[in-house]
């Protein structure tokens, strides 16, 4: 009996052992949770989702801040030009110091960050294109019209990312899908030129196929005019004004755009996608994520009322501040040597009296630059040093245009507002007007140039200036004396007189006026360094800036801008190593 029982129990156990063995294939299959496979993606909904994933790379929310600086370009266009300093204290982001002093080497990780951000966008566009074409071969597919438009969007984006790369790196590989490349693998494409051919072809495809209406009426989609603006800029970068002109004229004559009534409508959160906006990066926040071009907190003051934990980066330079002074006629002083020195609170404690300058100023100064004694977007009167991270390194100023107004704080759901949802107006009508003015100067049509420049100046003149004249500037922990009915400073701006008057009297002077207007209108936005480069005045401007800056702070001591070497940045060494024989280092760097 006992033996039988023993035998029975043994048999049962052996049987169950075998049972496990036989079902082991199924037992050994564990699928990843919460992700989709290729088959799910190869549907209209899947394709649309992949396309959205490509758009996201334009603002590249999680990588944008320093080395990549996608879209806002603040590291390269701002920090490396005469517009701004890195800011904060000297040990913070020390790789930035090297860029600012024109000492970047190929192993500077910032360069790889930028490369990474650009080509990740390119790769996403290529994956989406490949899936799009595959999907269109099957049954569950997009309508032919949408497929064509989708392809145009993707090519627009692909050109965009390559353009972002060639702003920084002189020669880049233009990466297309394996289908388009044929025998050459994507990782075998060499960097023999700036990639203009690819950029222009892709943009031309977009212009032809995008149409004038945005897909689904969604504000973030590009139209034909968006693609024309990008292509026009590409031509401007190549000094091909003849090619740029018809594109600009099409936008001006047929696009239906106009300057927004208030300058600040281009920088607030309540007038996004307005009449001036040609292509705008859509940013927003939720409780769990943000898509911010450049964290407001990143360049926000460190210690102010908003207390969103700012880091104090991106401080406007003294050079920029002084460029905003106007003459008695309300015009800019085009000769930097003749500009007046303006008082700043450099080295002045917040508990010590300081009287801001009463010089006549372009009102845009206080839209762009945050300074002591002037209201800071409703967050209070700027008390100077108490809000500044380290004046001796970054100077006494802060940028204003990336930060949100206090009354917009409630629109920012992500944490404390360090990342805000302020859109970035990458291409706005003002650019088109100024580029067209530049072309007009080249054509010697100075009156047309003056007209367009004055449109810009008149808008600045008619915009409501920053209000609130502050007569007490000691930080007392309570509200200082402010007269809300008076402008914050002595603003005076007028259009250029004419026709035929200085500076629109000669081609040379007119060019200076257009260039200066571009600087002021787009200060601390994404153009300065690249504009100086295409105008061919990098070395003269920046070396003069270094000399001027050294009268003010010590950071640029012994720094030299060398036009042959420093006009572009070196390719990241890691990628040269990974693509030996394919990528060639910029010999000039």
């Amino acid at each position, binding site marked *: 009996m006992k033996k039988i029982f*023993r035998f029975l129990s043994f048999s049962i156990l052996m049987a169950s052992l075998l049972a496990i063995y036989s079902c082991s294939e199924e037992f050994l299959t*564990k699928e990843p949770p919460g992700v989709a496979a290729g088959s799910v993606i190869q549907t209209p909904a899947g394709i649309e989702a992949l396309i*959205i994933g490509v758009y996201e790379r334009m603002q590249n929310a999680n990588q944008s801040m320093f080395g990549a600086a996608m879209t806002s370009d603040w590291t390269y266009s701002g920090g490396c030009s005469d517009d701004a300093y890195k800011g904060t204290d000297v040990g913070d982001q020390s790789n930035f110091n090297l860029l600012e002093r024109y000492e970047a080497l*190929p192993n500077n990780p910032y360069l790889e960050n930028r490369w990474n951000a650009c080509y*990740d966008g390119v790769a996403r566009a290529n994956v989406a294109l490949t899936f799009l074409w595959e999907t269109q071969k099957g049954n569950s597919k997009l309508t032919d019209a949408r497929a064509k438009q989708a392809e145009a969007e993707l090519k627009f984006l692909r050109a965009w990312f390559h353009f972002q790369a060639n702003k920084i790196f002189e020669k880049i590989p233009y*990466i297309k899908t394996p289908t388009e490349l044929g025998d050459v693998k994507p990782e075998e494409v060499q960097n023999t030129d700036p990639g203009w051919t690819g950029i222009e072809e892709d943009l031309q495809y977009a212009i032809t196929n995008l149409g004038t209406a945005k897909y689904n009426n969604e504000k973030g989609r590009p139209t034909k005019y968006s693609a024309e603006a990008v292509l026009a800029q590409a031509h401007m970068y190549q000094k091909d004004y003849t090619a740029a002109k018809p594109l600009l004229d099409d936008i001006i004559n047929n696009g239906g755009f106009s300057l927004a009534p208030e300058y600040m409508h281009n920088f607030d959160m309540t007038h996004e996608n307005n009449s001036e906006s040609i292509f705008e990066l859509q940013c*927003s926040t939720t409780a*769990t994520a943000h898509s911010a071009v450049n964290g407001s907190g990143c360049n926000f003051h460190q210690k102010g009322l908003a*207390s969103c934990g700012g880091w104090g980066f991106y401080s406007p330079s003294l050079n920029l501040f002084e460029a905003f002074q106007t003459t008695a006629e309300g015009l800019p002083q085009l000769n930097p040597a003749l500009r007046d020195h303006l008082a700043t609170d450099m080295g002045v404690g917040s508990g010590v009296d300081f009287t801001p300058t009463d010089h006549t100023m372009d009102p845009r100064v206080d839209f762009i630059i945050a300074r002591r004694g002037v209201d800071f977007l409703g967050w209070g009167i700027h008390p100077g040093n108490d809000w500044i991270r380290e004046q001796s390194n970054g100077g006494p100023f802060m940028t204003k245009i990336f930060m949100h107004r206090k009354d917009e704080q409630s629109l920012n759901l*992500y944490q404390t507002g360090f990342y805000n949802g302020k859109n970035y107006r990458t291409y706005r009508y003002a650019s088109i007007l100024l580029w067209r003015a530049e072309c007009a100067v080249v054509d010697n049509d100075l009156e047309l140039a003056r007209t367009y420049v004055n449109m810009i100046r008149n808008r600045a003149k008619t915009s409501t200036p920053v209000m609130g004249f502050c007569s007490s500037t000691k930080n007392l922990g309570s509200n200082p004396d402010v007269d809300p009915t008076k402008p914050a400073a002595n603003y005076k701006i007028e259009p250029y007189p004419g026709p035929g008057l200085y500076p629109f009297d000669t081609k040379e002077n007119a060019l200076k006026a257009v260039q200066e207007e571009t600087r002021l209108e787009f200060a601390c936005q994404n153009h300065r360094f690249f504009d100086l480069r295409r105008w061919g005045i990098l070395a003269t401007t920046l070396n003069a800036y270094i000399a001027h800056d050294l009268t003010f702070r010590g950071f640029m001591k012994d720094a030299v801008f060398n036009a042959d070497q420093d006009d572009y940045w070196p390719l990241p060494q890691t990628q040269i190593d990974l693509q030996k024989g394919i990528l060639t280092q910029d010999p000039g760097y």
Partner: protein
Amino acid sequence: MTKKIMRNVLLLIMVVTFIPFTLALTPDDGNGTTNNLQQKQISGRVVDASGNPIPGVNILEKGTLNGAISDANGRYTMTVTSASSVLTFSFIGYVTQEVTVGAQTAIDVTLAEAVSALDEIVVVGYSTQARKSLTGSVSTVDAATLAESAAVNPITRLQGKVAGVTIFNQHTPGEGSSIRIRGMTTINDSNPLYVVDGIPGGSYSPNDVESITILKDAAAQSIYGARAANGVVLITTKSGKKNQKVTMNVNVRQGFTKPGKFYDMLNTREYGEMLWLEAKNFGLPIGVPTDPKNFTHPQYGNGAVPVIPYYLFPTKAPENDPLADPALYDNLMSVRDGDDTYLITKANQIGTDWWGESTRNAPFKEYTLDIAGGSANTTYAFLLGYTSDQGIFKWTGYERYSFRSNINTSPAKWIDLGSSIGVVYTDDHGHQTDNAESSMVSWCYRLQPIIPVYDISGTTYAGSRPSGMGNAQNPVFLLDSNKDDFSRYMNISGNVYARFNIIKGLSFKTLLGINQYSYQSRDLTFVEVAAAERGTYDGFSKGAGTGLNWTWTNTIEYGLVTGQHNIRAILGSEAYDNTSTSVSASRAEYSFLDVNYMTLNTGLRSIANSDNNSSYSLFSLFGRVNYTYADKYMIEGVVRRDGSSRFGDEKFGFFPAASLGWRITQEDFMASTSDWLDELKLRIGYGVVGNDRMGNYNSYTQFAYHEGDASYGMNGANGAISNVGFRQSTFGNTSVRWETTNTFNIGIDATLIKNLTLTVDVWQRKTKDMLHQQQLPLVLGTATRPSINIAEMKNTGFDLELGYSNNALNGDLTYSADLVFSRYKNEITKLTDVASYFIQGSAFREKIYTRAAAGRAWPEYYGYISDGIFNSDTEATDYAPIFGGVNNKAGYFKYRDISGPDGKPDGKVDASDRTWIGSPHPDFTAGLSLSLGFRGLSIMTTLYSSIGNELVNYVSRYIDYTQFAGGRSHRRLYESWGSPYLKGDNTKATMPIITSNDTPHQEPSTAFLEDASFLRMKTLRIGYDFNRLLNNYFSTLQLYFQASNLFTLTKYSGLDPELSIPSSAINMGVDQGAWPTSQQFIFGIAFGL
């Protein structure tokens, strides 16, 4: 009898309650009266080295048949014939001891464990084996050895006790440890497989452990197949013994942990002086306020010398300044009262000692209670434990509660049943970030000395918000505000088994085990109103997770002994399934900052949540045959076939091993050496083991939704990222297989002159098909690269264990010494098909210190070689231009020109002049344990040394250089090039010139690399067996004093030369401010009934 038990129990309770310090027992000298009669009665007690009684010891009057056997309390009584009689005390596993009776009537004996524990039973995979028949390389540590250390983590207690393993300790409360068995097997997860009572994983407290066995070579490991490549650690928990009377043991120890020395930091006055020196060196005008460039510090002023202000806020205000009127004081932020804070803060004229303000002597407690016993058929053990390990930083700590119940029974001859259940609950609390620039160690040097602990309110913490104070947080604030943070972990693990003894020698065992854990964590982030980078809203987050793995093992075991032949075989199958899930959620903005009020329900904004799931399964068949002939020749073969869900097309792998053993001393021809060579065994083994740790889903190409990284607010609305986007998140690889490691081991075990044992193993381990997420050019995008089988690694080394133990003075004096020595040499033999390919470590404030490449160890340090400092501008400008010339200045580092793009020095120093500059790997590690017993007194100590390892002193960038405007080192002012304190002799400078911008000094170079070899006294324990004085009234009463980490000899200038291995092993050896090893002083009592 009952009364006696009652009395004992009461005493026990008293001991537990009143803790040893209050115990006042009058010692009895134990001397009996001299008996002149020829026949005399002798009584006494036999204990082991730790003072535990040894029952069943055979006591024989030499040359007679007169004898006795010790009882459960180790006591015996016998009558001897004369004072010249000699008593021999013998017991299996212990060294036989002889004692001449002489005048004594009470003879207490401490038996030393036999060094030649040939009959010791060793736990091996799925079974046990006698040590003498082992053919693989296996080390075992027993409970007594583990009890010597007071470390909270059982693995930490192994440091210096086992050869062939390298243990890297962490020093936060309830510290963890990383153990590496025979080098770094892989560039991936190198942690061994832990098996507790047959079940993978599971928590246990050190007191639960009967033995820890480490399987070190493939002969021993292969039975665990695809999971064994990093070695296997088998933990066996305590059980009772058959026919053992119930024993009850209480161990109580308590003491404190003492914070050591901190970095030598500048005080308030010196800090100002340093700022002035920086400005002077940078060439700024000083004391010329009319010059716009004149050096100005918001607090120290703009004069010729720094002036320490009275107030920091209002900035630089003098005493009685109207701006510092306390009526203006406001510590509420604008979200609370509509206007900004106004935190009036005085300067600390002397300087705040942030380390002193943040640390304390931290209490330590460990209480355990074991009850064990057994009848003829059933054994049982119940183990209870409590440990409280408070951190040297205020408000940090760790508590562990554990219990375990092990029961085995044989209701009939044909069946054995048993279960083992362990429950461990741990509670970690406070700010315990380790080895990061946000660790408490870092905050203590990151805040400037001029900032006081509190502002004028005396209750609100002061901080870095005043001008010029940098951006650090107040460490005391952080400790205080994080005191309610916790991470609580509960583990229930255990198994039930049944063994059917089918016929003699043949048995079938089925074992079902589970290992279930759950955790909960809470993290409160309070706004530090006085900090430069303060937030707006107080936040709260909570995490919870649970995981379950189950294992079902079925084995058939057969053993046959016939004549000279001894065959043992085991055949089995195993199914393993692991699932885990976790959720986390957070909110911010709370109306009340009461910790009970703050929940996920009551936060008003930033409502976020996420979850995470993972699963993994394995199915395996395995077998092992061991054949021994004449106790002399042994051969063993093992195979395992594993199927793993982690792989795509190639799920199954095959792991064989073979080994031989030869007990040379059993041979006749060895007769001549038998008077000194007691045992000599040769072992040779070769086998294959695997590693499947590459994440669970490598074979799938995945497209993932990601709100922050793929979605886009296409419709233009703020407050919603309206369009869901996907990105390709991974590249899948279905053809990937596990890593395989081929191990060759040759070893000898020897016993000489009875008391000296020696084990030496020489080994080589070659890992091939090593998984690596090969870097691809970024032009292909950034989706996670798949692991592919491409890399190869080699580890070679040898382990040595040498033990000696003996006694003298008739056994009154016992002494022993054990030396363990481990050496590994690690080399990546191949990373990818591209010879120049390398893997870089993470960037620490933009600088990368570690790198791995073929021909080098995993990992090594990479950077410039610094040949000192330029002493003059001429010397500098004559030198090859460094970084385009920016470094060619007096007082700057002279980096060596070693290479150019063509591999030859090219007359300029740039990125191609970086090279391999050092290694975090020790040349060897060694542990020496010494013990000495004299009558009741015992002294033992363990020394541990690691030689040849180097560390990157990353902290130096913060305190010697200008990484943020925080505290600075003494060295920066007094020893930097050009410092007035060098009195013109700059050759004495230990660091470069200090200036306002010292970016060029901070390149990774040999200047940041330091030799971190060390010798440390891990434990020193002095105990006395009071039971002797009480006439062995109890079974044990041992009181001891113990000191841990009493001294450390090292040249390393940081706080601690010992650093744990980070989760990304490539970043090994970068000291970012780790919690240091601290001294600990403990008083303990071991008490048994």
